[in-house]
């Protein structure tokens, strides 16, 4: 067996864990379906809105702020990905790597400061 195969097997076990979660929920829900009652009525299937009849559609429009925060998140998350390999190899990089990364983090912080200054970090 090659090393490559061991690597793939590790991730095969990871995939099996994911399937195991599906199997666990499936087993419990399946067990429940054997003993639970099933008597739907129109009133029971209505959406919950504090006891009164629901008004309009459940899928309402949402605010733009979620979109801006999601964009900010994507940017910072991608940059966090760059920080990890650097953190692992810092011993070898020494001062050179450190100064490089301090500049990188400074630019990152500058971006945050810009967003802050532009007032997009305010949840209105």
């Amino acid at each position, binding site marked *: 067996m090659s090393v490559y195969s061991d690597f793939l097997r*590790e*991730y095969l*076990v*990871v995939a*099996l*864990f*994911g399937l*195991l*979660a*599906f199997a666990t*929920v*499936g087993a*419990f*829900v399946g*067990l*429940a*379906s054997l*003993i*639970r*009652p*099933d008597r*739907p009525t129109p009133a029971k*299937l*209505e*959406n*919950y*809105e*504090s006891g009164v009849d*629901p008004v309009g*559609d*459940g*899928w*309402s429009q*949402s605010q733009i*702020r*979620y979109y801006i*925060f*999601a964009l900010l*998140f994507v940017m*910072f998350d991608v940059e*966090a990905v760059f*920080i*990890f390999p650097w*953190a*692992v*190899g*810092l*011993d070898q990089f020494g*001062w050179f790597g*450190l100064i490089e*990364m301090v500049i990188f*983090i400074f630019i*990152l*912080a500058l971006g*945050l400061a810009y967003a*802050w200054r532009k007032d997009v*970090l*305010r*949840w*209105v």
Partner: protein
Amino acid sequence: MMLAWIWSDWPWTLDTVVRLIFAIVVVLLPAGVTVYLYLFKMVSFMQSRLGPMEAGPYGSMQLLAEVGKNLQKEDIFPAKADRTIFALAPYVVLMSTFLLAVVIPFGPQATFVNLDTGVFFALAVSSVSVVGVIMAGWASASKYSLLGGLRAAGQLIAYELPLILAVVGVVIQAGTLNLQGIVTAQTQGEIFGFGGLGHPFILTQFIGFFIFLVAVQAELTQVPFDMPIAESELVSGYMTEYSGFRFLMFFIAEFATANIFAFLGATLFLGGWQVPPFVHDLLGVDANWQYFNLIGPGVMLFKMLVLTFVVYWVRFTFPRFREDQLQKFAWKFLIPLSLVNIAITGVLKVAFS
């Protein structure tokens, strides 16, 4: 073809089956323990009441009663709901929990999978639960659920960043992404030349530990960060329309994830499954003594209970944040603080190595 492979490598197949059985134990058993110990009993004593007393001695069978009750409840799908996604959401949320458990080491050989990029993998799959939460919130076609799901998404992505950046400090100190390697690094470390306690990273990464705990609290949507499921405003948010066992699955996933995050925190900051090195000298064994495979899970359970105690202590002590305060706290305090933490850790690491 798949079947042929299973038969051709029989020891590996058996090994994997044992791992999967232990995975169910690791996810479900501690969840039951903490729900009884902390959610039922500790909060009751904090609030000057007794909690469940009828089912079994000191109400310890209450959990089984709850499971039995939820098994018998009708599984209601709202008429307007998107049925497939509605049904799938609890699966996705629990899948995130199981995938998180994969990388946690419990002893020198007692690991599920010893991934080289363990920390990275754990942080990546922890955000899969967001997908499940949004699926639940959207598919319910209810205003409470949609608002809860969106709030959860906003909150989980805001606190994902401090969580990731807080862990970077530990990675810098340990010099590896492998969780087993991080445990070893903590055992071999010294505090001013004294190696008896090893070097649990909580001592030098206390800022990172603080950020990690706050971010975990928010990722779990526990009070004071429970706006997505605020029962007094949103009636459980994305779980509003769920009933019966599907609801219980969200519940189980929440508490199981709390435990797995506590396991992860124990591994990263409290020395993991290792006992302090002076115990090695007392017993006259080395750090990879085979019986640590048995002792390790007990050590991890103890450390996990300490960390989850903090989580529930905070949960039952503080009032809820407001939505804008929550975002402000993440973006204007925790993220700058964790960036500073990374820079300082890097400088000290290079200066002292």
